[in-house]
């Protein structure tokens, strides 16, 4: 990947596109299956999908909502890239998001005397650390007690929800709500602790062109939407984690352990430490997802007793986005956006067409199934490609390097 000539780079880019083909096909396949369900419910699938597309990118606001939805998914997905590269299946994004949000909101509510940027910084840090430590439990149990991390993270998700319910009903409860019967929630964080909304001013030329295409908004793109700076943080994080994974010794060790635990151990790499670290980073990213939801969007943490009410399943969807992005943090950026659009668009479809929310859950499941299943085809391709990469077989090389003597018998 790093020693490539320009020619190789082009070939690799080309291969990447082909590697994503099975994923896109799987996406389409899931939607085709979903259209069967739609027809069964006497809904016109074409119209439904048009509504979906419209809901995802049809308007400035829709597009902004797509990105808003993508933010926590991207955070989680970036972390999942590290975990999976390190050979750890982290299903605990939901719980880690909650842990991050709890710590982050606590800091934001306590450190009110500090300047805004510092509150944000400390709050984000607290969120990262809390998520990291929480995931670290599962990492520790896997590294030292051989506890299957899939199971422990699922259990930890449940524990996180109950802890959130307990804290939001207790010490973190908004003092003005104490004694009332309102939904448990924290106080609102200070305005200066909130992540600013994000907008860009379009250059005249582009704006003109967009207007020509029927764009109705102002040149201040996203100004009247909920899009916030969490997006920029998430993208920065993706780049940093990309560098970490492929440019630093830390990432090298994590990947080495993920690919081959034994060889790493033999080479003197402390395997348990890498497992915990991978889980730690993954959890930290998920923790950031949680705290950014609070600082950028909800400005307080509240619970309806379930995890989903807060996380919107980003802890799971992040896994799918990571797979979609080829377990590469940079690939996770477009993957999360696509996934965010899918979810936001599906909601629109639900509103426009009266499709039940349950259908969207089912389709979500189909997308996961088709995505993981399509990996086999990607693997096959990769193998075939490896086979065709010249010159490869030892025999070819043999012939080139030392011409053997003629056989003698």
């Amino acid at each position, binding site marked *: 990947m790093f020693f490539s000539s320009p020619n190789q780079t082009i070939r690799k880019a080309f291969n990447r596109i082909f590697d994503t083909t099975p994923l896109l096909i799987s996406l389409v396949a899931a939607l085709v299956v979903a259209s069967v369900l739609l027809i069964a419910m006497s809904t016109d699938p074409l119209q439904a999908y048009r509504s979906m597309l419209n809901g995802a990118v049809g308007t400035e606001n*829709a597009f902004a909502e797509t990105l808003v939805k993508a933010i926590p998914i991207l955070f989680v997905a970036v972390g999942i890239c590290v975990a999976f590269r390190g050979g750890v299946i982290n299903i605990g994004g939901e719980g880690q998001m909650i842990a991050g949000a709890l710590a982050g909101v606590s800091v934001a509510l306590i450190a009110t005397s500090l300047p805004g940027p510092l509150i944000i910084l400390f709050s984000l840090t607290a969120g990262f650390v809390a998520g990291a430590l929480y995931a670290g439990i599962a990492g520790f149990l896997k590294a030292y007690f051989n506890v299957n991390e899939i199971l422990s993270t699922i259990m930890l998700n449940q524990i996180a929800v109950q802890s959130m319910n307990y804290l939001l009903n207790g010490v973190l409860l908004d003092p003005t709500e104490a004694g009332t019967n*309102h939904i448990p929630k924290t106080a609102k964080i200070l305005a200066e602790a909130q992540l600013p909304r994000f907008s860009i001013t379009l250059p005249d030329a582009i704006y003109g062109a967009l207007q020509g295409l029927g764009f109705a908004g102002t040149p201040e793109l996203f100004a009247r939407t909920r899009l916030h700076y969490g997006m920029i943080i998430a993208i920065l994080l993706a780049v940093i984690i990309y560098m970490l994974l492929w440019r630093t010794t830390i990432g090298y060790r994590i990947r080495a352990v993920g690919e081959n635990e034994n060889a790493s151990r033999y080479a003197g790499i402390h395997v348990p430490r890498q497992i915990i670290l991978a889980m730690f980073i993954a959890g930290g990213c998920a923790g950031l997802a949680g705290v950014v939801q609070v600082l950028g969007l909800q400005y307080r943490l509240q619970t309806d007793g379930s995890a989903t009410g807060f996380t919107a399943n980003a802890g799971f969807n992040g896994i799918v986005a990571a797979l979609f992005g080829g377990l590469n943090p940079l690939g996770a950026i477009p993957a999360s956006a696509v996934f965010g659009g899918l979810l936001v668009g599906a909601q629109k479809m639900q509103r426009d067409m009266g499709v039940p929310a349950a259908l969207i859950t089912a389709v979500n499941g189909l997308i996961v199934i088709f995505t993981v299943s399509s990996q086999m085809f990607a693997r096959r391709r990769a193998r075939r490609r490896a086979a065709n990469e010249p010159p490869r077989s030892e025999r070819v090389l043999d012939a080139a390097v030392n011409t053997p003597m003629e056989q003698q018998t």
Partner: protein
Amino acid sequence: AQDEPFRVAVVSPSAINDLAFSQSMYDALLTIQAEMGEANFVFDFQEGTFVVDDAAVALRDWASSGNYDLIIAHGSQYGSVLEQLAPEFPEVSFAWGTDVNTFGLDNVFAYTAAADQGGFVNGALAALSSESGIIGVVGPVEVGDAKAYVDGFIAGAKAAKPDIEIQVNYIGSFSDVPLATEAANTFIANGADVLTGSAQMVVGAIAVAQENGAKWFGTQSSQSELAGDAGVLFQVYHWEVVLRDIIASIGEGKLGGESYILTLENGGLVMET
């Protein structure tokens, strides 16, 4: 006397047929529609929106479309979303519940139910009809409407029969039917002959009451069909009482700033058998 129908959009957490919270609103909208006629009143309903952030997207979409006369966020978890959203669309009227807080905004109505009132009635009657002197209460999470109902229920029962034993179990979930059911079984095994409970996961508990010859008292919607012989009394929410007022206000050009409470007195809460 309008040409255009009155348009309402509603988002709610659970399903419209939950025999509880969401259904109470859905039924109320149907009632209003029957009253005003389908040509004059239409509504869009996005159910199953447990995810607060998804509700935010929906509310924003509706608000920015400019197509609706009233947008209802039916769930107290949607409050902070509305608090942010409403100021951005001052020309649109919003309503939300269950709460009394309009955030000082004059385009937000708030509504809630004095669930403790019907709870009190249910509790008193339950205590009087219990022979064993033990009553079981299944709650979801110890907050909001459910807590109000349960607190009212306990107060009513104690008032009617001070020595009544009330066993309460908040199972920690709005959806865990197996656990709620087993909680009901536990009460029965402990000698309870009257059960009550709030929220949509009580359906199994109702079946337990029926099977064991215990009595069931319900809240939010009528569960008489499910409860059969076991069902005694249901506190039913009639949001149409509130909706009528809100619609009238909007007709007069007043987009919010008011809060409403369903009570037994104003007919918003009705005890049904």
